[in-house]
């Protein structure tokens, strides 16, 4: 309870501070110029630094976790996806993992029933919630290109049209806006409801969820209810991208709350569990082919080891071996 409340108050504090600061003209340069450039720099540098660090850690041995038959003899059928032995198999397995969260799909829940009997059940809701959230977030991010690029890229227009397929109201209701809020609320209540999950939930778990929820909520509020002037927002954002920042003419506190929360997310991401965004590509239990026995993998930091072979041993004790009448390899 305490951790979730402190995460909530931190998110609210950031949003309220930004909203309040936007009221003071002398604070605007900080909020509208220093904040976006600073947080973006931290995001790019931090993310690169983490990935470069990971890329430097040695991978001496293949450690894939598999659940299928390894490739061995020609007449034994091997599982190409579950236990890939070649690069195409690994790529397919990674793609399914990254795009569809295949390992989460196999999530189970254990329960002790009378008997006592341990029962494993399938638990798909987490997978569904996670998939709904991540895909919505991706679409929302791509849709935001309409504010960042002029002329607006075709993908952004296409996604906007698909997203507004149902043509409900104006500004048209975007399906991902509903889905992302619903998925985030599900993921949050899951941490509260389940005692085991609540027990292992840390500040960062709540903070990440509440931060994303705050961003989504301010965005939805801004689009459908407060209705911020999208043209003015785009002019401001474009001015940032061409390094000629022009402060927005009519800064809405809500816009700056959204802006500051998004900046916080960007700056926080490289140093948090959210870095799984890059880390998923580098998971050694997924991205390595299961060919430990088919290929020789030499430990890259092997140093020359002094060895004493049998031949050398035999030569050393030849006279004693012959005297004792023992058989020798090389007579």
């Amino acid at each position, binding site marked *: 309870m305490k951790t979730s409340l402190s995460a909530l108050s931190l998110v609210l504090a950031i949003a309220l501070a930004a909203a309040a600061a936007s009221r003071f003209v002398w604070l605007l340069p900080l909020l509208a110029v220093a904040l976006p450039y600073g947080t973006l720099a931290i*995001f*790019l540098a931090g*993310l*690169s630094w983490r*990935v*470069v660090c*990971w*890329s*430097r850690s*040695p*991978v*001496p041995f293949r450690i894939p976790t598999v659940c299928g038959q390894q490739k061995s003899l020609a007449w034994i059928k091997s599982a190409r996806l579950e236990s890939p032995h070649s690069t195409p198999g690994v790529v397919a397995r990674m793609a399914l993992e990254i795009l569809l969260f295949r390992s989460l799909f196999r999530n189970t829940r254990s329960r002790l029933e009378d008997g006592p009997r341990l029962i494993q059940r399938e638990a798909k809701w987490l997978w569904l919630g996670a998939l709904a959230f991540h895909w919505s977030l991706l679409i929302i991010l791509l849709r935001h*290109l*309409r504010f*960042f*690029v*002029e*002329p*607006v890229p075709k993908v*952004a*227009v296409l996604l*906007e*049209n698909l997203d*507004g397929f149902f*043509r409900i*109201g*104006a*500004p*048209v209701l975007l399906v991902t806006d509903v889905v992302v809020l619903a998925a985030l609320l599900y993921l949050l209540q899951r941490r509260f409801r389940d005692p085991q999950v609540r027990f292992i939930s840390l500040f960062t778990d709540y903070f990440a969820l509440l931060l994303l929820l705050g961003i989504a909520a301010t965005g939805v509020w801004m689009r459908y209810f407060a*209705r*911020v*002037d*999208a*043209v*003015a927002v*785009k*002019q*401001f954002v*474009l*001015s940032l*991208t*061409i*390094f*000629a920042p*022009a402060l927005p003419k*009519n800064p809405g506190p809500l816009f700056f709350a959204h802006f500051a929360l998004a900046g916080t997310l960007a700056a926080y991401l490289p140093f948090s569990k959210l870095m799984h965004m*890059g880390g998923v*590509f*580098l998971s050694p239990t997924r991205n390595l082919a299961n060919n430990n026995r088919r290929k020789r993998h030499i430990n*890259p930091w092997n140093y020359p080891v002094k060895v004493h072979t049998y031949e050398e041993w035999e030569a050393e004790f030849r006279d004693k071996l012959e005297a004792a009448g023992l058989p020798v390899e090389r007579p």
Partner: protein
Amino acid sequence: MRDRAIIWSGLAMFLLFATFPFWHNLSAAVTSKGPNPVLPANARQCVAPVEYMKTSHMTLLLDWREQVVRQGRREFTAFNGQRYNMSLTSTCLEQCHSSGKAQFCDRCHDYAAASVPCWDCHVDFKSTLRSAK
């Protein structure tokens, strides 16, 4: 160990994509001037204050539609007492924005990537006449 080249090129691709707005806009010499819609020559005041129209013209239009189609009322009394016929084509376009939607509505909507389906049914004489020629 041997995958460093792959990892680093993946990272480079991500960085390139994440900074796409910067290098695209800089190389395309984009400015933050805005869409610059053509304002009507013969009218000074819209049916509502400009600040309101800028952010909420879509709700106003839907409100008009609701009034006309569901309630059968066609007259709109503006904030300053002016009376208007609630009609997308004959009031918004014909009466004031006679330069046509392409010079006015579309400029903003292309800029903000708002897809406005109204013209599937409502007529904009300016563009209809031009394409009929």
